[in-house]
């Protein structure tokens, strides 16, 4: 072909990004998440105070010019703690999703595109896990490993593996019947290569759509665990953990509860807004 056909057809990724860019819900959700990302990246420069610095003379002081959102029960600056808390939030989203999507994808792919024996074994295992409401699975893991932020993230991640495995398996089963997979097989590609080279790239869409549901729920669950004292432990500026002690001062210092509570709410809302937009763009059935 000559140079007259200058513009290459836009890639699928470019197309998706373009649709998202003009999607109202994606704009709003993206803006919230951008604020969180920037806060996490530049927390040291943005935060007006040290998030761990105790100031007993200024305990539970209401929002003011020096302390934008007020202070907590030992005089720590709430605004600074929220800003540093974005790092915990992002880490929780990342770790829980990597564990759940990673293990779920591997299990689902082996089950859906691998040998039948593996399918039978993995699916019985997944059935049992699905018989547990996620919270029970999470509590079982925490009971075994002991409460900490790491345990909470691992537990929430494990709790979400069965859902991913189920989804990826059915997606893989559908893709497997496509002609291009037949073609790859006819060309002599090995089973492993077919699974990871041909099937995997074609189930990215359902994977992203499912993650758009699962990630906000996982982040909420992790925050709830910290709130219950089963996740991140005070004095870490994790938003859920910030509520543990603030709760006792609900009647006298509502801002100490409102600040971390609203931060979690806004962050989850951002994820859900972006998720809605992603589903609109990637999953036409859901329109």
């Amino acid at each position, binding site marked *: 072909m000559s140079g007259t056909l200058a513009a290459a057809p836009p890639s699928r990724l470019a197309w998706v990004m373009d649709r998202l860019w003009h999607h109202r819900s994606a704009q709003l959700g993206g803006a919230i998440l951008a604020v969180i990302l920037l806060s996490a990246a530049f927390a040291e420069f943005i935060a007006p105070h040290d998030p761990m610095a105790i100031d007993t003379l200024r305990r539970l002081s209401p929002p003011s010019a020096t302390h934008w959102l007020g202070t907590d029960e030992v005089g720590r600056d709430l605004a600074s703690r929220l800003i540093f808390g974005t790092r915990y939030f992002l880490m929780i989203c990342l770790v829980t999703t990597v564990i759940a999507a990673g293990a779920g994808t591997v299990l689902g792919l082996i089950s859906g595109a691998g040998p039948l024996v593996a399918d039978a074994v993995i699916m019985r295992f997944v059935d049992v896990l699905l018989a547990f409401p*996620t919270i029970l699975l999470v509590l*079982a893991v925490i009971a075994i*490993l002991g409460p900490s932020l790491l345990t909470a993230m691992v537990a929430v991640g494990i709790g979400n593996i069965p859902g991913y495995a189920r989804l990826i398996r059915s997606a893989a089963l559908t893709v497997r019947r496509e002609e291009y997979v037949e073609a790859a097989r006819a060309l002599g590609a090995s089973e492993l290569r077919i699974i990871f080279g041909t099937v995997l790239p074609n189930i990215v869409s359902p994977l992203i759509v499912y993650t758009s549901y699962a990630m906000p729920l996982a982040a909420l669950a992790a925050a709830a665990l910290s709130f219950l004292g089963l996740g991140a432990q005070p004095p870490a500026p994790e938003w859920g953990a910030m*509520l543990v002690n603030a709760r006792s001062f609900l009647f006298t210092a509502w801002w100490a509860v409102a600040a971390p*509570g609203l931060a979690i709410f806004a962050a989850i*809302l951002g994820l859900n807004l972006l998720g809605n937009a992603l589903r609109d763009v990637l999953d036409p059935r859901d329109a």
Partner: protein
Amino acid sequence: MGGYIARRLLLAVPVVLGILFVTFLVRAVIPTDAVTAMYEGQITDQEAEATTALIRAKFHLDQPWYIQFAYYVRDVAHGDLGESVRLRRPVSEEIGYRYVNTLILTLTALLIGIVVGVPAGIIAAARKDTWMDVTAMTVGLLGISMPAFFFGLLLILVFAVWLELVPVVPRGGAALLLPALTLGLIEAAPISRLARSGMIEMLRRDHIRAARARGMGETAIILRHAVPGTLLAILTVVGLQFGQLLGGAFIIEVIFGWRGIGELAVKAIQWRDFALTQAIILVSAFSYLGINLVIDILYVWIDPRVDYSRA
């Protein structure tokens, strides 16, 4: 139908075994030995060692895991869920009344969730893309993004402190009000979204279009044709949401000091009371399994058209 129920029950057997095995693991792979947890700091090291050996033998902890598992299954089958090392009494005694409390809370919340969520979803679908739909869906989006524990604290602040409509430390029936409202309203959000999408799909069906072509009024179409048709979808939602509801109840119980199994579970984990933790997870998982069984059976009863021979 009888055959279907029998088959469905048979399919539950491996799941029951699986549940037993996972809960067994809670006590089998614990990092701190239950014996040490029981007498921590109360006796000398030599005494501890001797007592440990005795107790390990008593609870079969010196046996291989599969023997321990067999003992565990036998005990559960006899209704013996072990003894709480912290409360010093049989776990089943403590769980009994708390289970009822949790059931009261979750069922009330589910009722609130259905009463608020289902009509909201139906109206949103019937008036798709109007301000009513947009409002319902926006509220729904805010609802699914709202952490249950924060919402609960907000309701306490608004209703008990600012408006003084309910006492801060309520008694009797009033004690159920705020926790059930918190959980129910949070639950209404996903229920309304699912009811809406089920309803939208239903309104596209042929028999609805036929009714419309016959000149039937829109309200009559929705009430007489579409709503009964979405009953199945709503039932599915209730089944799916029950797990969510249970998770929510655990948190809500802690906030409101509602003495249910959720509040106990959180304490049990913090106490490292493994028998208690294990029993709560076991009982909850069995309840969840039972509810889903009942819903699967209700399916056939409501919608006999569906071929369940493959199920």
